[in-house]
């Protein structure tokens, strides 16, 4: 894995250079949601060189004179959200060919995409970008932060796993499953051939037919490399399972491969199978849906997050590309409407995805030593009226709501309308503060 | 065309041959171990006769059982179905005989004064499928494509050609999906409902006159039953509202959601002609016959003739009593069509239309031995094969029949 910052951090510690003043940031907060520990009222977080150096009650922490202070003493501070599966921010997320394991999202990510801007606005700090759901064996993904001019700038980790999908396109469900089995079998065959050839080479070398100093030079085909790594469990697979009907096959596949599953919404028919999921899963952005009973023609509402919680399977939430599901607070609210706790819902956007990405020592909670990926909200993260005011990534302020041009555009008419009638506007112009 | 002409000629010849035979010689005595004169719970007299016979004269039932005069009995040709059961032929309450093209005027949706009788082709191939299914009479409805389709007739299939029993019997309407197409008015249920509401108002208040509105007045005065294709709740509700506003009792064709308007149907005195049932239907639809009966609503079946028995059997499996199920194949549709004096029962004066089954006709394993229409064998055999060895004093070699007892 490629942690640019990790490297910087290591460099800093080895050189043991004194911290530069601009590297020291202090955030004063009314409430700090640490996620893994108890919440702190009237707290302070000190960031040094992009990492959390101290976190605690304001009374217990001395803010150095050299620190740049972000005053959020009437606001809520918490880690930025982590998305374990996203198809956003790419130009062309779906390759039309079905079997393209050699592709990488690095070549499709558009740093200028408004998606990343929108993610910052939503308080998301870590995004695992993977190819779309329409391709069988679609290529490998990478973890990015939604800030930077180039893909390299944005990269947190690359080659984070192979995207696989059982989503049925034009053909039948069974055909898709068969295609997947064939694709995997073909890679195994290739690998077996390669190894047989290598064994023969070594055998002949041992027998003296090939000079002893000659080296085995044939490398694994570039097109097959990623798929071979998947087969050898050197690389994780991220398998999209569109509905309950493919879950059985997904469970079978996970016996041979190191898989993380991304589950579609329609799971109610697979309730007994859900308990068999040992690993945490990612849920599609749609977590609440209606189903009509064909006999009675009555609708029933289901919630996939609730089903997984009931089955005792940890899950990560996703955000939709547009509409209400693109807002973390709405997704959290949906979980809570369906009987999940606030903590459970918050973890599904922080710690659970961080663990799935193997980044739980870096992101997903506020603790000493972790990256300074912090969002400052105007209010509680579960409230519809809270807005993300500031986003800090690795100690650096990367988003400020007061300077957000899109919000300015959307609300300028309201601000103008509110101006001449100052007394009347007091109720209306408050963008969201409390109910 | 050539073939068609040929068929017509043969048929015509045959018909001539039959017509020229002496009338007295046409008396036929049909015997069986069980004869059901009429099905249905409403019958006061016992309607099942054991070891009895029917005397057929001029294609009609002349006498039944003990009423048969001995001299007529002696003079008649005898057909003996032995251990089989004879019961009234099935009545298919509504059908277009697969000829929607001929029975739905495409240009406009409001054509109540068209007559289906005028589009009836007695040589239609589809008629040949009826007798093998036990159907001996049918209501010829206008297609469901028009909001007011026209005046329906009652017809009969036959061995070779069909015929009309009555030319102007009921009026066919439709508010179903097929009546609302994107080609002409109306395209929506609102539009169909409004079209009916306005034209019935015009007919009632005499705002306009014309042959089309005259037909609607016949409906309102109860002179002609009104058949309405309607399936979903909203469609049924529209029909019942029209019925209530203009004070007539509609007959519903289809009615797959009629369980949702049972009370209103009962209050209005409406009848329902259900689509023939099959096992893949929703439970709610399979239970409809029992539910309608419980609510006191008359129902029968239309749709696929070969599924009539299956429908009755499925209705029984889903809670309907056998007597009502049998009536739904015979007496109920005859009554709905206002033809109870002519079809649906085996009383003196009714057409000699009956089916012969070895066993109970609701038992789908029971063998269908024969169908008779207008006193003639239209399907199956004249004799019961099991009785080939039996002989008796009345045996007549030329009829290929073993005699009575």
């Amino acid at each position, binding site marked *: 894995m490629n942690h640019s910052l990790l490297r910087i951090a290591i460099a800093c510690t080895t050189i043991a250079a004194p911290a530069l003043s601009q590297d020291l940031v202090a955030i004063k907060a009314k409430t700090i949601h640490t996620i893994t520990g108890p919440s702190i009222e009237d707290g302070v977080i000190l960031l040094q060189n992009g990492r959390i150096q101290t976190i605690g009650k304001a009374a217990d922490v001395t803010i150095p004179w050299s620190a740049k202070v972000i005053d959020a003493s009437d606001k809520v501070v918490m880690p930025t959200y982590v998305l374990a599966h996203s198809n956003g921010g790419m130009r062309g997320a779906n390759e039309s060919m079905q079997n393209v394991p050699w592709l990488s999202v690095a070549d499709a990510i558009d740093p200028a995409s408004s998606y990343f801007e*929108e993610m910052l606005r939503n308080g998301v700090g870590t995004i695992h970008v993977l190819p779309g759901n329409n391709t069988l064996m679609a290529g490998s993904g990478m973890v990015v932060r939604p800030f930077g001019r180039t893909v390299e700038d944005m990269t947190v980790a690359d080659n984070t796993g192979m995207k696989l999908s059982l989503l049925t396109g034009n053909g039948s469900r069974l055909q898709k499953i068969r295609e997947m089995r064939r694709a995997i079998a073909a890679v195994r065959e290739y690998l077996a051939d390669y190894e047989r050839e290598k064994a023969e080479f070594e055998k002949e070398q041992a027998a003296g037919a090939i000079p002893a100093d000659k080296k085995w030079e044939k490398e694994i085909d570039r097109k097959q490399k990623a798929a071979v790594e998947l087969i050898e469990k050197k690389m994780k697979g991220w398998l999209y399972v569109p509905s309950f009907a493919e879950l059985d096959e997904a469970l079978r596949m996970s016996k041979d491969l190191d898989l993380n599953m991304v589950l579609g919404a329609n799971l109610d028919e697979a309730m007994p199978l859900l308990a068999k999921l040992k690993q945490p899963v990612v849920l599609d952005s749609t977590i609440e849906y*209606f189903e*009509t009973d064909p006999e009675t*023609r*009555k*609708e029933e*509402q289901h919630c996939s997050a609730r089903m997984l919680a009931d089955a005792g399977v940890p899950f990560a939430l996703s955000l939709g590309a*547009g*509409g*209400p599901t*693109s807002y973390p*607070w*709405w997704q*959290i*609210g949906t979980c*809570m*409407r*369906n009987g999940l706790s*606030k903590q459970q819902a918050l973890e599904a956007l922080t710690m659970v995805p961080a663990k799935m990405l193997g980044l739980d020592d870096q992101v997903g909670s506020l603790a000493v030593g972790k990256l300074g990926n912090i969002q400052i909200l105007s209010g509680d993260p*579960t409230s*519809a*009226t809270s807005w993300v005011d500031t986003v800090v990534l690795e100690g650096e302020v990367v988003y400020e709501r007061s300077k957000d041009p*899109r*919000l300015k*555009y*959307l*609300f*300028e*008419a*309201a*601000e103008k*309308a*509110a101006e001449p009638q100052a007394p*009347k*506007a007091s*109720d*209306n*112009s*408050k*963008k*969201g503060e409390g*109910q | 065309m050539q073939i068609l002409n040929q068929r017509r000629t043969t048929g015509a010849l045959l018909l001539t041959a039959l017509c020229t035979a002496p009338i007295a010689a046409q008396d036929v005595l049909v015997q069986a171990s069980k004869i059901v004169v009429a099905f249905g719970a409403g019958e006061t007299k016992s309607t099942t006769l054991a070891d009895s016979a029917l005397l057929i004269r001029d294609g009609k039932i002349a006498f039944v059982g003990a009423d048969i005069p001995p001299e007529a009995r002696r003079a008649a040709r005898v057909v003996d179905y032995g251990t089989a059961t004879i019961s009234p032929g099935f009545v298919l309450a509504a059908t277009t005989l697969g000829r929607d093209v001929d029975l739905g005027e495409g240009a406009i949706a409001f054509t109540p004064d068209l007559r289906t009788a005028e589009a009836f082709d007695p040589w239609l191939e589809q008629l040949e499928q009826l007798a093998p299914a036990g159907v001996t009479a049918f209501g010829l409805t206008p297609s469901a494509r028009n909001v007011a389709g026209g005046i329906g007739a009652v017809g009969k299939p036959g061995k070779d050609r069909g015929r009309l029993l009555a030319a102007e019997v009921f009026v066919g309407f439709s508010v179903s999906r097929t009546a*609302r197409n*994107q*080609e*002409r*008015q*109306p*395209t*929506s249920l*609102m*539009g169909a*409902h*409004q079209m009916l509401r*306005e034209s019935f108002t015009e007919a009632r208040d005499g705002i306009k006159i014309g042959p089309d509105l005259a037909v609607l007045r016949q409906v309102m005065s109860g002179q002609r039953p009104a058949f309405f294709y309607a399936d979903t*709740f*909203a469609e049924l509700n529209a029909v019942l*509202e029209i019925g209530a506003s203009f004070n007539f009792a509609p007959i519903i064709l289809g009615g797959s959601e009629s369980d*949702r308007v049972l009370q*209103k149907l009962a209050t209005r005195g409406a009848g329902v002609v259900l689509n023939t049932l099959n096992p893949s239907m929703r439970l709610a639809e399979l239970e409809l016959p029992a539910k309608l009966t419980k609510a006191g609503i008359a129902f029968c079946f239309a749709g696929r003739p070969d599924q009539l028995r299956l429908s009755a059997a499925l209705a029984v499996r889903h809670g309907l009593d056998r007597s009502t199920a049998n009536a739904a194949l015979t007496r109920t549709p005859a009554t709905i069509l206002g033809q109870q004096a002519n079809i649906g029962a085996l009383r003196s004066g009714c057409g000699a239309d009956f089916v012969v089954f070895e066993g109970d006709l609701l038992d789908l394993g029971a063998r269908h031995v024969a169908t008779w229409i207008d006193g003639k064998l239209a399907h199956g055999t004249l004799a019961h094969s099991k009785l080939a060895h039996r002989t008796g004093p009345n045996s007549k070699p030329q009829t290929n029949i073993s005699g009575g007892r």
Partner: protein
Amino acid sequence: MTPLLRTAALLRTATLTLALGALAAAQDGVTAYTNATILPGGKPAMSNATMVVSGGKVIALGGADLKLPDGANVVDCKGKTITPGLIDASFQSGNNTQDLNEQSDEVTPNLRVLDSIDPEDPRFARARNAGVTTVHVMPGTRNVIGGLGCVLKTHGTDPKAMVIKEDASMRIVMGSEPSSGNRAIRGGRVNSMYYRRPTTRMGVIWEVRRAFYDAKEAMTKTQGAPGDAPASPGTQVLMEVLQGKVTAVTTARSEQDLRTALRIADEFGYQTVIDEAQDAYMVADELAGKKAVVMLGSPSAEGVGGSAGRDGAAPRAGTVAVLAAKGITFVITTGTNPAALPLINEAMFAVRNGLGPQQALDAVTIEPAKLLGLSDRIGSLAPGKDADFVIWSQHPLDPAAVAESVLINGQSVSQPR
């Protein structure tokens, strides 16, 4: 006997003597909902409040000191919030929009959407379970003048019994929707009824103008000579609109269409409600000047990330705040957005976009009741009003809020979630 008790007793007697079947069956005496936070609609919140319901009506509302009638069933609503049943002033019913549009004519003022209502349409159940107790249904948006809307309660088996106001409105549609799919006749065979007017926005307005012109003409005729043949049913409806007996609702999204809607209403002298007014912020002063009531369809679609501008409109999240600041009366609806959220969540998005919570709740309760001319019955909780209310798990504008109990005429109609 306290006045309250007397009222209760009177009401009970009235219920018995009048034998109002449904109400009597619904109500076994008196029920008191206590310890609740009550947001009565149009008035400030009451904490630790009590509401007494009997005979399908609210009979008393008060603080913790309110004396409960003897023998009242007491429902403790500690921690819960009670609001009036929500009213969706533009609710799309029917799975099949084909049945909401009679396309054989562009102007069908006398068609009634009530004729196509199915009470078991799952949309009613969805709305009901999410706290909506009354809806205003209009014909679809494919016709220039679509027909008559009606107001229904969301629970029942018979549309006639659910209706609380027939012929509540007549819908007019601006913009490109009524002309889309139509084709001009340019020689050749006319083999479809879609070869017709209008094919342009201009054509749409021409249809509206012609229809109202005919209605005006018919009005002068019937006034002048009583022997004249009565006007066609459609023209009669338009006459009632001109006389102010039937509310005109004009669906107009973009600025251009909004201005046209106001202009044509002026031209013929009728007052119109503006529906789906996405660009309302651009014509706020005109709307305020004309005292036009605005229906905002699905504010969630106008969120920050979305680009839900339809028919040339450019919606902005700040619209609700603009309307509030300009003193324009408006209601929040689910409207024609197929992806609209439950009504309460649409109100919640309006709050996110800058509307005060009290105003947002009013915009889905008392304001639509006023708009529909039914505020004496529904939209707020006060003695004498219909006992249509919702018991929420918490403040209803919280994303985690659940409608735990929905009651219409005092009777529970929601399915447990």
